């Protein structure tokens, strides 16, 4: 894997460890001076030597060696309240259990096609999306089940969609890669990478438009849009074009890069001339932040500030979350290229295990309470599968529905009537 030559050695930055045990989280420095000359790097790597091993990304000090965030000495002042901690824990367990069940169902032949699972990256989804209100939007990629769940789409709706049933959130018409939910402002679910970023930019534009042109102002500020995408997308033109436009018009958007180091079988380091994605924010004028994506609390702190910035109208932020997917790219991926020691390294940093440990060490909840949450989630997932199993498949009459919002778009047929007025249309058998 080290066939290529150069691993970029970072020029010396003032590496400010934003996270120390006594540091107050609310004063996260990157927002105070949006100067692009010195983006503050939350890079908790202690050594440059790690970077010369191309397969491992910069590791976090939180869970491995040093004291965890909010060590027992600061148990009296934890970063999250008990309620927040339980909410976060439950959401991460939901994401993990759901994805595990998806794998099971896939291998049992209940769902087909391309299914991309999110195991290992839950901290990013939970860390960001749990801070949003319902009016805020989320745009994702094909790895979108957990983003939809975090945003509030019921597990049964997502599972039914995966099974291709008419009770799915998209009536079975979208599938794994196209999770949409208008009531929860989940704007998809896109199969081509990079495709969702302009859509997210548009959603952010509409938030600004509503505020400035339509004069619909809300006391809590602009509605924020989160765009989630991976490391592979960061080499795509749409990414850069949207960074430019979002900063140009100070759109209320946060670009969240889920850098799991692999684009199917293409290592990020083999595909990218400068693999440090957070550095690509400042050239466009926005802050670029790197955060350990396996630590949900760190992600949450960064997310709080980025979202608050966007809400205040200060513009976009580029957040690179260093994370890892425990499974292959999709359920069809044999996952042969990733080395076992890399996988082991990240498996040891499982965000759920780590957060559970944090909760227990800080006495935010008891072991039995956490077990109850896990049991509750198991029930939710089981119910979701039952619901999906027992739901009907879409009937033929659904075939031609929703192609056009205004079905007159099917045109005027030979008999002079709009084709959608043809009685056979509602059976899906009309010739259009």
């Amino acid at each position, binding site marked *: 894997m080290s066939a290529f030559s150069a691993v970029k050695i970072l020029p010396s930055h003032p590496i400010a460890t934003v996270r120390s045990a006594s540091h107050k989280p609310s004063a996260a420095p990157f927002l105070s001076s949006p100067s692009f000359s010195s983006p503050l790097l939350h890079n908790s790597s202690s050594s440059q030597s790690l970077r010369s091993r191309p397969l491992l990304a910069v590791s976090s000090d939180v869970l491995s060696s040093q004291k965890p965030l909010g060590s027992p000495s600061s148990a009296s002042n934890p970063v999250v309240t008990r309620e927040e901690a339980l909410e976060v824990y439950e959401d991460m367990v939901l994401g993990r259990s759901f994805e595990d069940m998806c794998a099971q169902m896939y291998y049992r032949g209940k769902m087909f096609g391309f299914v991309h699972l999110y195991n290992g990256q839950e901290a990013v989804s939970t860390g960001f999306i749990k801070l949003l209100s319902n009016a805020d*939007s989320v*745009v994702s990629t094909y790895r979108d089940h957990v983003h939809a769940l975090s945003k509030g789409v019921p597990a049964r709706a997502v599972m039914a969609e995966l099974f291709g049933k008419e009770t*799915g*959130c*998209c*009536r*079975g*018409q*979208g599938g794994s890669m*196209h999770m*949409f*939910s*208008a009531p929860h402002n989940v*704007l*998809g*679910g*896109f199969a*081509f990478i990079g*495709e969702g*970023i*302009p*859509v*997210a*930019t*548009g*959603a*952010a*534009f*509409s*938030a*600004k*438009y509503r505020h*400035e*042109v*339509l004069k619909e102002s809300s006391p809590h500020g602009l509605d924020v849009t989160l765009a989630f995408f991976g490391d592979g997308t960061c080499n795509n*033109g*749409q990414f850069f*074009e*949207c960074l*430019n*436009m979002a900063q*140009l*018009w100070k759109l209320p958007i946060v670009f969240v890069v889920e850098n799991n180091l692999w684009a199917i079988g293409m290592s990020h380091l083999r595909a990218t001339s400068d693999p440090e994605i957070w550095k690509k924010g400042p050239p466009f004028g926005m802050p670029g932040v790197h955060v350990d994506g396996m630590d949900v609390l760190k992600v949450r702190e960064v997310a709080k500030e980025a979202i608050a910035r966007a809400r205040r109208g200060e513009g976009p932020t580029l957040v690179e979350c260093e994370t890892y997917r425990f499974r292959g790219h999709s359920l069809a991926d044999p996952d042969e290229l990733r080395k076992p020691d890399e996988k082991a390294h990240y498996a040891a940093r499982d965000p759920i295990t780590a957060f559970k440990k944090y909760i227990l060490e800080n006495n935010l909840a008891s072991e039995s309470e956490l077990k109850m949450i896990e049991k509750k989630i198991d029930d939710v997932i089981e119910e979701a599968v039952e619901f999906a199993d027992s739901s009907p498949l879409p009937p033929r009459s659904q075939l031609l*529905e*929703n*192609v*056009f*919002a*205004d079905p*007159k*778009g*099917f*045109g*005027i*047929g*030979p008999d*002079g009537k*709009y*084709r959608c007025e043809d009685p056979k249309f509602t059976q899906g058998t009309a010739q*259009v």
Partner: protein
Amino acid sequence: MAAALQMAALVSSLSNLITSGKSRPGSLIRSPAGRKGGILVVRSDGRISGGFSASPRGGNLIANAVAAKAEAPASSTPSKSGHELLLFEALREGLEEEMDRDPRVCVMGEDVGHYGGSYKVTKGLATKYGDLRVLDTPIAENSFTGMGIGAAMMGLRPVVEGMNMGFLLLAFNQISNNCGMLHYTSGGQFKIPIVIRGPGGVGRQLGAEHSQRLESYFQSIPGLQMVACSTPYNAKGLMKAAIRSENPVVLFEHVLLYNLKERIPDEEYVLCLEEAEMVRPGEHVTILTYSRMRYHVMQAAKTLVNKGYDPEVIDIRSLKPFDLYTIGNSIKKTHRVLIVEECMRTGGIGASLRSAIIDNFWDYLDAPIMCLSSQDVPTPYAGTLEDWTVVQPPQIVAAVEQLCQ
């Protein structure tokens, strides 16, 4: 009485046009298609009748008769005298009226704001509505089209301008995957009421890349509606209809038609997106065309009329979906079809239209459907070569003569 005087004025102006030699293409009699209002039929012998009629025939030579749509009432003659303007001004008028009417309508594109649009369609709008509502975008077609789609999903009604339709090839990803398909893929949860418009077609020696006809590339995209305007009257009407439509609509304008002048009604009107326009009723052959080729056809029609033919000319306007009713009625009457288009021969609108006609009206055909399209070549720069890539009136005349043997 005022009405009669007005009618008389209209008739005399019609006859002026007929005798004025070089026809100004834009001054062709507006053929009111649409399902509102009453219609006016002017017969060649000067009689005027209201109400519906079958094809007005009288005398050997049919002048440029006002179209009569057999079924529905077409748009009304202006009760006032209307106002004259150029096609790009008509587009702007339609856009401005819609922007006044609905604050969610916004415009995005390159140079649409301060510059006023490369063809001046959005001139003055940025001063009136502000820089956010008439948004000057950077040169990133794929992304700003996607941005328009995202904004549409969240409730705005954007009008995205491609400075030249060919540039929208860069936005093909967004137009195909998101614009056309998202409504279906989301199970109907999000609608995309976007209008994508811009000038296309072969101009005056603009070179291959600025002379593209994208209607053939976009026509397979499910969920997308396509219309092509050709006169100031239908340009304004289609622009308004496209903006009001809940579907994503691609409005094809033509570079050479922006300076057509026509008198259009003062009162508000919206045309039907899915309908075709009867330009000239006839008996012998149905000529289906759209956009700039309409004018080549009408020019050929003059020659044909002088030779004793009576072509029926229909501007199909709606490129996707086709108005098979109007087309079918015409074929049932004439039994011969000639399609004249500016698309390439391969995979163009004509090819689809031909197969749609064969599917539906095979029994009514007395002759094979002829389709005149552009040559399958990249449009050359040299003027002579460029002229030979597109269909010219003599070819149309020859084709009709061959069809009617």
